[in-house]
């Protein structure tokens, strides 16, 4: 049971990190990025290709993170430009459809060009014992990285001027403009940041399971569900929802099997959304 719980937290932290990127972009500008999982996959593929070419692990990872950030910038400068010109629901819908198209372009290309590539980062050494439970070393390292990244994010949003400016746009875009914040620049910054976050998700996940070139869609959907359950625009909510759903998922998996556990997970998510459409920690509108 405790083992399940710990596994659930490991999974949940990754869910949380995954959802953080999606939730920020949505909260900031009403943009739903359905190519988010593909950002992670592109970063993963970049790392694999760099390592195949003989690059050592850490520079390769750095390259992957840079690729993620660059991708975010490219999204902002290209496909999202027409999206920014719309308002309200039309904006969400257009962003959803355009990024869905983009997701398919990326998915199709990667699975055509690199059908068998997958990122697997292995960390040597045996399992680590935590409160009497033996945990895979990779999972522990992945969780530590995730916690550190989430901590940095939290510090950025709470304590720095720029981080507060980001939150101000989420809270009230017009109010933010009136104090001198440029929402477009904030959006660009956050897209670059979510690109890096997606890359980090790819890296931490690959410490536990291989990240294949076709994993994009699954990552996006997980991120979206966690995001909605946590409350759109709330990073803390995303982390909380990630952990809750992660625990539900692993506990259910050990009792009813993987496939049906996914059903339970999804139903739990649906019920949460129906009871609280604003999510666990979302803004009530």
């Amino acid at each position, binding site marked *: 049971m405790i083992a399940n719980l710990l596994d659930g937290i490991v999974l949940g932290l990754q869910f949380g990190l995954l959802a953080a990127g999606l939730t920020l972009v949505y909260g900031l500008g009403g943009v739903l990025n359905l190519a988010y999982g593909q950002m992670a996959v592109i970063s993963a593929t970049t790392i694999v290709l760099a390592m195949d070419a003989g690059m050592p692990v850490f520079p390769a990872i750095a390259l992957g993170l840079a690729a993620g950030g660059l991708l975010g910038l490219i999204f902002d400068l290209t496909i999202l430009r027409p999206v920014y010109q719309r308002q309200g629901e039309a904006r969400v819908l257009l962003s959803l459809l355009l990024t869905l198209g983009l997701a398919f372009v990326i998915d199709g290309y990667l699975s055509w060009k690199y059908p068998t590539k997958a990122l697997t980062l292995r960390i040597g050494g045996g399992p680590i014992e935590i409160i009497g439970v033996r945990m895979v070393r990779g999972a522990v390292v992945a969780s530590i990285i995730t916690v550190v990244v989430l901590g940095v994010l939290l510090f950025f949003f709470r304590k720095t001027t720029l981080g507060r400016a980001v939150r101000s746009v989420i*809270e009230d875009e017009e109010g933010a403009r009136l104090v001198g914040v440029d929402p477009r620049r904030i959006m660009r910054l956050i897209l670059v940041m979510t690109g890096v976050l997606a890359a980090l998700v790819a890296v931490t996940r690959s410490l536990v399971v291989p990240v294949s070139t076709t994993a994009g869609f699954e990552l996006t959907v997980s991120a979206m569900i966690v995001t909605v359950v946590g409350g759109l625009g709330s990073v803390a909510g995303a982390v909380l929802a990630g952990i809750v759903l992660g625990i539900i998922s692993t506990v259910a998996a050990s009792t009813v099997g993987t496939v049906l556990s996914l059903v339970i997970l999804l139903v739990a998510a649906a019920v949460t959304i129906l009871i609280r459409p604003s999510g666990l920690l979302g*803004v009530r509108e």
Partner: protein
Amino acid sequence: MLEVTGITAGYQGGDVIRDVGFRVEPGEAVMIIGSNGAGKTTLFRTVLGLLPPSTGTVKLQGEDLVGISTHRIARKGIAFVPAERRLFPRMTAEENLALGAYPGRPDTATLEGVFDLFPRLSERRRQRAGTMSGGEQQMLAVGRALMSRPRLLILDEPTTGLAPKLAAEAYRALEVLRERGLTVLVAEQQVPLALAFSNRGYVLENGSISKAGTSAELAGDPDVRRAYLGVS
């Protein structure tokens, strides 16, 4: 300081204000009075670049602001307190104030100045803005505007939703600011308060300026007395 000429602006349904012009000199307190729907908010939104005018110019110390985005205008020394306040509800009072100084960091002396003016904000500095009372939120909105150390403070109906006593208090605070040399432009429906506060004023009716004059002139104008002061 601020000179607006020939502004026509509106939304898809049509023009809300037509050929509106007014000016604010440094150190003045100027009011724009008008009833609900006269176009006061539209006028201010146009000045702040939140709404593009179809014609006209908005000049801040000679520089045309039309076409400049709101965040740039805000950084040029105009602070705007909208009627709906536009605070950041899930952030603390202190964080709201800090953002007022964006992109800079909040300056301690300015912050102390705001707390001097509104001691309540000092008590509530760790409280989330969304959970504060209407009066406190109004103080916070003005306080946030002051954090940028503006040259010109524009307020749109600062007494909206406030009880008469709180409304009078709000104007006392504005009085203090004016005495310190801040230029203030205020739109108001509660005309007696605004008349007592300002040097000059304009009457906005159905989207056009119908009268202009010193506060004393306007207070003596029979039309103004009938329409806005309830005196026949």
